């Protein structure tokens, strides 16, 4: 354990001076002691520091911009898109102080002029601290710096590199919206081993400590013997830097060989499963190639098999005009089984009547109805944990949507490395030509500054710009010639996100 002393001595100088004068020189800013590098320790150390506010006596308190606000069952809720506490419901004294601050009350000259303060100074500062801790109020510069440090530590997860390993381009389904070119073949097992070994070494050299391989296709279960052999082989693979490895299967779930089921049950293989709805809603798009039969019944059996063995597959729901009417049913299906799931709006949807403005309106309307239903029928588990819209969970600002060009690569069946399986499958290199992980992280085609709609004036004033993260940058690139332009799904985000936030607020109120 490292003993770290973090002295926040650079609070706004005059405020520290004022505070020192008011407290006979005893308050010189906030001193935090971290007893380990554990990211939680700094947060624990920061808790209960409302006394510090009272010592300081005067602070600047500003309402953040942007800040979304709404009412659910007559109760106000707030959501700071740049915050880290998600949706916050306020009642009683907290709402009273929030309204005072929203009306322009200033604390710069001291809190003594506030009636609430005069009634109960201790409670006043406790509430002020709570609002600041939930990031509904921005306090003085120093406090903001403390919060920034907390969030930097929160983000400091194990550095992970994600690899989409295209085990095969073949598939037993023929989904109208699929982006994979089915004409190609499969990845030989020896090539798969070489790729894994090389990328793990490259990732280690590039400073990553963990690599997640997403075993994908096509349908990777058509290569299930390779899946098993690859994972078994990796257990004994030379790994001098001790890079942690994890494997995740992205499957259509139409069949589950016993040896793969065992791997999933043992935890050696994670599983995500594509399910676009219940019954006809799923079958409308996801049919067998050989006879056109819908695949829901078989996938339902696979899910039952997994659930019986205490495995909860992650459900990926791809939303288009043909299944948007069934979202409530699939949400209910997942809630009942305790399955975590997400809704992704299709991007290459023109083949099945999507992608138009009318289609987007229909999709937005269906999503909105589903979130209204969720608000009235919240799951047993926290909605934050069990569901995402796109990859949005409201607990972190999104400055970029995914790891494209940063910590994600796709490797084709013949060993070509590219940035994204869907939008940019043209290889930038072969896996064995230099350090391909560095090539991905060092590429300049998609820089972070180009992401998040930063280049579109329509995004700059939007309250949701740090929630949607600008949508898929490559989707925007494909439509507008620049990843920085607003997402082609912008109107969907704008219509649906308020309902998505409200569903979270409702769950807080009913206490589930």
């Amino acid at each position, binding site marked *: 354990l490292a003993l770290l002393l973090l002295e926040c001595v650079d609070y706004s100088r005059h405020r520290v001076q004022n505070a020192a004068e008011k407290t006979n020189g005893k308050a010189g800013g906030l001193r935090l002691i971290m007893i380990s590098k554990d990211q939680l320790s700094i947060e624990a150390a920061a808790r209960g520091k409302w006394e510090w506010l009272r010592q300081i006596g005067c602070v600047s308190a500003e309402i953040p911009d942007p800040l979304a606000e709404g009412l659910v069952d007559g109760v106000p809720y707030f959501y700071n898109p740049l915050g880290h506490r998600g949706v916050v419901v306020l009642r009683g004294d907290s709402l009273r102080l929030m309204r005072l601050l929203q009306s322009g009350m200033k604390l710069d000259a001291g809190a003594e002029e506030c009636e609430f303060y005069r009634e109960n100074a201790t409670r006043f500062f406790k*509430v002020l601290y709570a609002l600041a801790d939930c990031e509904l109020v921005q306090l003085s510069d120093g406090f903001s710096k403390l919060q920034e440090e907390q969030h930097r530590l929160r983000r400091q*997860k194990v550095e992970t590199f994600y690899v989409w390993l295209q085990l095969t381009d073949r598939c037993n389904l023929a989904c109208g919206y699929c982006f994979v070119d089915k004409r190609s073949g499969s990845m030989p097992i020896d090539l798969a081993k070489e790729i894994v070994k090389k990328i793990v070494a490259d990732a280690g050299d590039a400073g990553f400590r963990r690599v997640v391989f997403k075993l994908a296709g096509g349908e990777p279960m058509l290569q299930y013997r390779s899946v098993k052999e690859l994972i078994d082989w990796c257990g004994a693979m030379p790994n001098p830097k001790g890079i942690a490895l994890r494997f995740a299967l992205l499957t259509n779930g139409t069949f589950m060989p016993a040896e793969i089921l065992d791997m999933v049950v043992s935890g050696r293989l994670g599983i995500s499963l594509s399910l676009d709805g219940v019954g006809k809603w799923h079958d409308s798009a996801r049919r067998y190639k050989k006879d056109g039969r819908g695949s829901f019944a078989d996938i339902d059996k696979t899910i039952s098999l997994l659930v019986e063995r205490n495995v909860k597959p992650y459900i990926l729901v791809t939303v288009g005009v043909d299944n948007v009417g069934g979202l409530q049913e699939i949400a209910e299906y997942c809630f009942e089984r305790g399955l975590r799931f997400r809704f992704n709006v299709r991007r290459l949807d023109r083949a099945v009547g999507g992608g138009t403005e009318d289609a987007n309106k229909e999709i937005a309307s269906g999503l909105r109805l589903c979130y209204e239903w969720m608000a009235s029928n919240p799951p047993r588990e926290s909605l934050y944990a069990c569901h995402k819209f796109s990859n949005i969970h409201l607990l972190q600002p999104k400055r970029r949507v995914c790891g494209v060009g940063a910590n994600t690569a796709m490797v084709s069946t013949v060993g070509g490395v590219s940035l994204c399986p869907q939008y940019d499958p043209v290889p930038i290199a072969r896996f064995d030509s230099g350090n391909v992980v560095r090539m991905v992280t060092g590429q300049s085609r998609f820089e972070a500054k180009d992401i998040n709609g930063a280049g579109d004036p329509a995004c700059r004033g939007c309250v949701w710009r740090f929630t949607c993260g600008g949508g898929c940058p490559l989707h925007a690139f494909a439509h507008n010639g620049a990843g920085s332009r607003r997402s082609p799904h912008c109107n969907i985000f704008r219509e649906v996100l308020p309902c998505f936030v409200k569903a979270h607020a409702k769950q807080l109120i009913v206490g589930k």
Partner: protein
Amino acid sequence: MEYEDLGVICVADGDALEVIASSGSEDEQDCD
């Protein structure tokens, strides 16, 4: 929730951290 007595209701910080920590796992697959 630590601030409920003050009228503040939000997700517990530990639960929020858990959601953030699980982001980026296989469930982060973001392609159609």
